[in-house]
């Protein structure tokens, strides 16, 4: 007798344990070592004896028994053969446009002071960096170029955008003619009601804040700064439009409640899971353009630069630097130390900017409380 997982169920082995991922219902079944070995036998199409594990998995509608050796095609998106064709266009899904670097506030969590945050890419930040900002016309040209490259969404960010309000809305209005999916990042204290009503319908507004209002407004995304000492206390926040932006001051400040914990392992959707098999969960399909025009893997990875759009157009940067860009896009977690041993690697989050900062290595790993070699959370 044979037991095989259904097409929608992927089985991923870590160095000790494995897990089954149901891509339709979003369930994860974590297996112990013995179960992992049994599952490996099954998925290698070897015969098995009926057993508790398999009956349980069938009850969960994750697999079935067969009398003969059978081939189960796994659920996928698209055509693997089509994707392997040489010369396919790059799949750019997300571009950060950091159109400004000025800010009069003096927030303690700002990138200006070298503070790193888990969502520093998305939140407001300014950088201790000089340089000539790109003029509005260049940003508009870049927006045209990103549209031609079939980029799916853009994030307009950088410093306090209200200080360059006319420029920001000029760029936003232009982007609106080209993109359906636009995000704009502003600090809560800078936002006026007039600004908010102007932006509604033009962009999805991400509001950086240190404190949540009792009544959060619908239709906005709140990015809540979380200090190291408050990590555990914000676990109860479940508001659907609030994302927690953890501050990492230094590695020593990391407690057991590191960024990646057992609670956070979840299978959000099949697109991400399948994407993560090949690409980095965050850097994949992403680029950032700094206020001076530097093209970066992400807004926080300022030490890596593919070129500058003031001297070369973005398509030309793709053409010449594709190998380097792909090194970041294709940095899936199989290539990250520790993650390579982990069965949850395709459903996990990972901030390379923070990890590199904390470990000094592009493939280092610090922010995780799972030991895949032992199969234990600590």
């Amino acid at each position, binding site marked *: 007798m044979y037991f095989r997982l259904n097409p929608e169920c992927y089985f991923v082995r870590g160095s000790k344990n494995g897990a089954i991922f149901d891509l339709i219902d979003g369930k994860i079944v974590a297996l112990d070592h013995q179960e992992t070995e049994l599952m490996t036998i099954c998925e290698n199409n070897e015969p098995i004896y009926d057993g508790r594990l398999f009956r349980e998995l069938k009850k969960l509608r994750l697999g079935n028994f067969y009398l003969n050796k059978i081939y189960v095609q*796994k*659920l996928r998106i698209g055509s*693997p053969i*089509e994707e392997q064709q040489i*010369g396919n266009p*790059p799949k750019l899904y997300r571009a950060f446009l950091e159109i400004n670097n000025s800010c009069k506030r003096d927030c303690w969590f700002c990138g200006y002071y070298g503070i790193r945050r888990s969502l520093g890419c998305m939140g407001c930040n300014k950088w201790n960096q000089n340089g000539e900002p790109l003029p509005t016309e260049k940003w508009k040209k870049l927006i045209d170029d990103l549209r031609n490259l079939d980029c799916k969404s853009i994030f307009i960010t950088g410093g306090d955008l209200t200080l360059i309000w006319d420029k920001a809305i000029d760029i936003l209005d232009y982007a609106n003619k080209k993109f359906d999916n636009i995000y704009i990042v502003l600090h809560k204290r800078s936002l006026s009601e007039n600004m908010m009503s102007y932006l509604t319908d033009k962009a999805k507004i991400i509001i950086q804040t240190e404190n949540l209002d009792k009544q959060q407004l619908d239709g906005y995304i709140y990015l809540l700064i979380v200090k190291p000492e408050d990590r555990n206390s914000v676990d109860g926040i479940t508001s659907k439009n609030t994302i927690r932006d953890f501050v990492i001051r230094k590695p020593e400040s990391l407690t057991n409640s590191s960024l990646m914990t057992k609670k956070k392992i979840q299978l959000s959707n099949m697109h991400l899971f399948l994407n993560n098999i090949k690409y980095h969960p965050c850097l994949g399909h992403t680029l950032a353009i700094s206020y001076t025009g530097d093209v970066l893997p992400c807004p926080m990875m300022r030490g890596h630069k593919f070129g500058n759009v003031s001297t070369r157009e973005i398509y030309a940067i793709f053409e010449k630097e594709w190998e380097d860009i792909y090194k970041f896009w294709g940095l899936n977690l*199989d290539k990250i130390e520790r993650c390579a041993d982990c069965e949850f690697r395709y459903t996990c989050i990972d901030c390379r900017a923070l990890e590199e900062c904390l470990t000094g290595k592009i493939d280092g790993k610090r922010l995780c409380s799972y030991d895949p070699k032992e199969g234990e959370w600590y």
Partner: protein
Amino acid sequence: MLEFYSGNGNMYAWDNEVGLSIPFSHTMRAVMNELSDQKSISNKGIIIKKLKKDFEEEEISYCYDWIKKWEKIKFQNYRLQIPYTVSISDIRQFVLRNCLLQLTLNVTEDCNFRCKYCVYSNNYKYTRHHSDRYMYFSIAKKSIDHFFSLTKEGLRYNPLRVPAVGFYGGEPLLNFDLIKECVEYIEDKYKMYHTHYVLTTNGSLLDEEKANWLMQYDFSISISLDGPEDEHDRLRVYRSGHGTFQDIMSNIKPIMDAKYKKIHSQTVFDWKSDLFKIDEFFNRSDVPHITGASIVNNVGGCKYYNRFSEEDNTAFMKRLEEAKIFYLENHDYYKSHAGASFFDLLFGKGAAQVLFGPGSLLHPFSIMPFTGTCVPGRKIFVDVEGSFHICERVPSNIPIGSVDRGLDFEKIAEILSNYFNHLDKCSLCKAQKLCQKCYQSFATDKGFLCSSKLCEELNHSLIESLTFAFTTAELDPDIVERYDIPHEKSEKIIMVNKNVF
């Protein structure tokens, strides 16, 4: 769903909405029928009650739950709007982003061979016949300029495209001076594009001087070779009727001796071919790796097969079946062999194409909703007089521009509209995502014609292909999960990590 059984006796079904074949069973079919019956109430309890006399209760329950789960990922079935129209700006953008892969110059229609199955012989109704026309440099130059002008514009949409320029015939080496002139012109004017050059030749004129020049420019040299001497010479002969094999083998020897990697063979066979001998031949180290194998094309208006009897067909089908069995029984040998074999291409690659070719879950591009056809402009085939065509195989009465007009996007829109308006059955077809038919399959001198017979035949052959693909995959998934990249049997198509199942 298209149901089929594998060699192991397992039942599967092709689910066109998802674009994947799933394990299937009689119980699954019965539950699906109950669920799709609009008149009855599809409550789990009722269905179990109704079906339990024929099937096990636990299995009915399992199938019910799983089908309900599976349905969550199904989109509404794609329906083509007839009359089909597509905007010229959409086509232009699509071509600039996804097409323009190769400019093929038909440098001459002249050929020193008279191959029995030649697409330009009198056997085919809708293609040109043998002629002695040659292309002039003025035509080639205008084509090249236009192609690189589009390539330049297209860089903004797809900066990763590697443009290729191919030389085709007739026998292209009969106009070798023009080939040299074109390459020198491209290298002088368009060097920054790092053009990839491709030559399809019968190999008879490939002397050492020409070979050295082609290798210097890093050409991909595609040699038409139909197997060992008796097999090859049965089909590929000079005008005089004499065999061509010895001349070709002697010409390619210096290239093979130089260990040049970018030379490969393309083979064509018919109902009289000895498949085993062909397979054995292409495993020889002095023969270029085989990268293409196809049976003589039997498209509309083809008379080639009139020469064969029913018995010939029966005998061929028997040999084909024997070859399949031999391939499966010796799969360990084929897996370990460096480079793809004839049987790998015939069976393994075919199975991989059936399993991993269709786009699962994604809607097809709205611009090309049905069949496996390309959008005209993916390649540009230029005939000797400077007319642009969809490719070398599509009849010449459907041009898509010319050296003077350039690529005609309006004409492409018209061709697409005409094509899809004749495929009115596709939106209901159960094998929609598996269909590999294209313009060539439906072209006539009066436009496109899609016959029910053609679709019936296609459905029949798809079921055969699925059956073989799953039989092979059950035996050893490794055979179908590898996609042959020319010259190396390397990466697996689906998973690079052995710890993901």
